[in-house]
């Protein structure tokens, strides 16, 4: 029974590890003027959920969203000067996103600002169980990896909440 439970845990850990992108961009932090590194695994999310109020509209929404998540991993860098990072820095992440389970649902390229933004989703049995957001500009680099079933509409609906201005547009999937 214990062996079976251990095996199940190993399988679950392996599956979660497959969903989670691996990115080690610590070396860019030294060049960045501002950087954020968030690694929140499932246990941390569930622990944080106890401190999110159900009465507060924003917190209640986030609380519902994290209930089924297995992790959120974010790296953002802002640079004073352009060219502080190179596309090769993102290659390791892109390589992982080329896997069959990942598909790019949105790709935006802004010629004027030199900005690229992409959203990838990881599907299994026709259900989304992971999202990756890559946003890169001459002076900015952001990687967001949400592990677990994500409702993109709920994520987008946070516009107008958390101090984010609401953008009214048609749904694009």
């Amino acid at each position, binding site marked *: 029974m214990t062996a079976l439970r251990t095996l199940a845990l190993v399988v679950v850990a392996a599956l979660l590890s497959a969903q989670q992108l691996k990115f080690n961009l610590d070396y860019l932090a030294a060049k960045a003027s501002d950087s954020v590194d968030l690694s*929140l695994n499932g246990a*941390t999310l569930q*622990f944080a959920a106890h401190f999110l109020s159900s009465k507060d509209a924003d917190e209640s929404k*986030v609380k519902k969203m994290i209930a089924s998540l297995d992790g959120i991993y974010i790296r953002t860098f802002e640079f004073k000067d352009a060219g502080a990072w190179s596309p090769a820095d993102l290659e390791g992440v892109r390589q992982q996103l080329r896997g069959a389970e990942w598909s790019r649902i949105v790709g*935006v390229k802004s010629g004027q600002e030199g900005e690229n933004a992409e959203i990838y989703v990881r599907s299994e049995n026709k259900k989304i169980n992971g999202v990756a957001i890559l946003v890169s500009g001459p002076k900015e680099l952001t990687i967001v990896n949400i592990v677990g079933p994500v409702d993109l509409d709920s994520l*987008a609906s*946070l516009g107008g909440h958390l101090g984010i201005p609401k*953008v009214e547009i048609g749904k*694009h999937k």
Partner: protein
Amino acid sequence: MDWLEQELKNTLARKDPPPDFADRVLRGVGRSAPSPVWRHSRWLAAAAAVVIITGGAAAYRQHQGLVAKEQVMLAFRIAAVKVNHIQTHIQEAVR
């Protein structure tokens, strides 16, 4: 009665204690036994230690929880900002 018998009789004869004997015994007992106040203060110190440790652990857990909550809120803020940003670009492209 020979001299030995007389010696024993004298030695083992009942002797009354001096008049201040009872007072001296009571004073000695009072010095060696801990006072009820001291006994209570030891329990109070132990109880205070338990309260401080338990309270400290609860406060630390509360602090950790609030830090985790702030991190989660920041993570969603960043993710939502990026999704909104992408939506804005799409909206501009559609126009």
